[in-house]
């Protein structure tokens, strides 16, 4: 099976049919839920302080439902209108935006107490987007720079993604560092081809008091 990000841009790949299929697939739901809980763990938010979070590439709200259950207030952005429509139908609580993260965010400095992203960044690594003149490094730079500014100091962003090579991890990490982030990569189940999960753990400032 070919990777979806190699077939078409996300807003085209996730049309009505794929958006519904994706959301109703119990295996995907389970993996998505596991990764969301893991991302929240890595986010390491101070306990008993209700946080305001950004869900980058929120899709149909699979992670958002968990953020709701956990009592977070959140904002979700996604470039696929069909996915956002499914999110509306599922009545998630977060504010939703149709947005291409490669174009950057307009949120004021320090808006969010943290950010998570599940299975999204690999889409930014492909030149084949609906904006052909924008190269992956340019889009990644725009994304990380405006994300860094939108996060409060200190805080963290935890971004799970599917790289195809170590070069991709290297590229993403170096651009994130240039944008001002500290941190690095956490790999869960590194020796399992199927279960292996890569989390980019980015810190603003010290990334939070508890380490």
């Amino acid at each position, binding site marked *: 099976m070919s990777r979806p990000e190699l077939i078409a841009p996300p807003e085209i790949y996730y049309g009505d049919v794929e958006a519904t299929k994706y959301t109703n697939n119990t295996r995907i739901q389970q993996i998505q839920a596991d990764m969301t809980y893991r991302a929240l763990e890595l986010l390491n938010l101070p306990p008993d*302080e209700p946080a305001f979070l950004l869900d980058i590439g929120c899709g149909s709200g699979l992670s958002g439902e968990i953020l709701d259950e956990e009592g977070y207030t959140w904002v979700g952005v996604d470039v696929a209108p069909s996915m956002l429509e499914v999110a509306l139908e599922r009545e998630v609580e977060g*504010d*939703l935006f149709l947005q291409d993260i490669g174009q950057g965010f307009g949120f*004021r400095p320090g808006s969010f107490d943290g950010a998570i992203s599940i299975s999204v960044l690999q889409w930014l690594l492909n030149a084949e987007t609906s904006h052909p003149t924008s190269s992956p490094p340019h889009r990644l730079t725009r994304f990380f720079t405006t994300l860094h500014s939108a996060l409060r100091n200190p805080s963290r962003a935890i971004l799970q993604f599917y790289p195809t090579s170590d070069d991709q991890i290297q590229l993403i990490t170096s651009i994130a560092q240039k944008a001002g982030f500290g941190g690095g990569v956490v790999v869960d189940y590194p020796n399992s081809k199927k279960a292996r999960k890569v989390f980019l753990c980015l810190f603003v400032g010290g990334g939070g008091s508890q380490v």
Partner: protein
Amino acid sequence: MVRLITHNLLACHAKNCTSNNFPLQFKDIEIELREAEFNPDFIRGFLPKLEWKALIDAAKQLGDTSLPSEQPEMIDDEFLKNLHHVLLEIHIEEGAMICPNCQHVYPISNGIPNMLLAEHEIG
């Protein structure tokens, strides 16, 4: 859904639009009121993030005048409840947000603002 909690954080992100690009101006707005769970700690913690004048102006435009024009020094429960309502219970369903600087129009349809930029507007 877009609510004043996020409108208050949102500036225009078009290319070279870096000053006078906040707050985005509402146009032809339709709203819906939906109850949300009141969490006083969250509201209190959110106070330092707010641009108060922008919030008051936006609330007025949406027909809500329950908040004082200056942030009060004494934070009581009634104030927090009013602020909770303004931030989290007024949903903007249709209309548009317009940048006061570059005039870019961000349409809102079915509660979702379209933040996509045209090729020449990308920074």
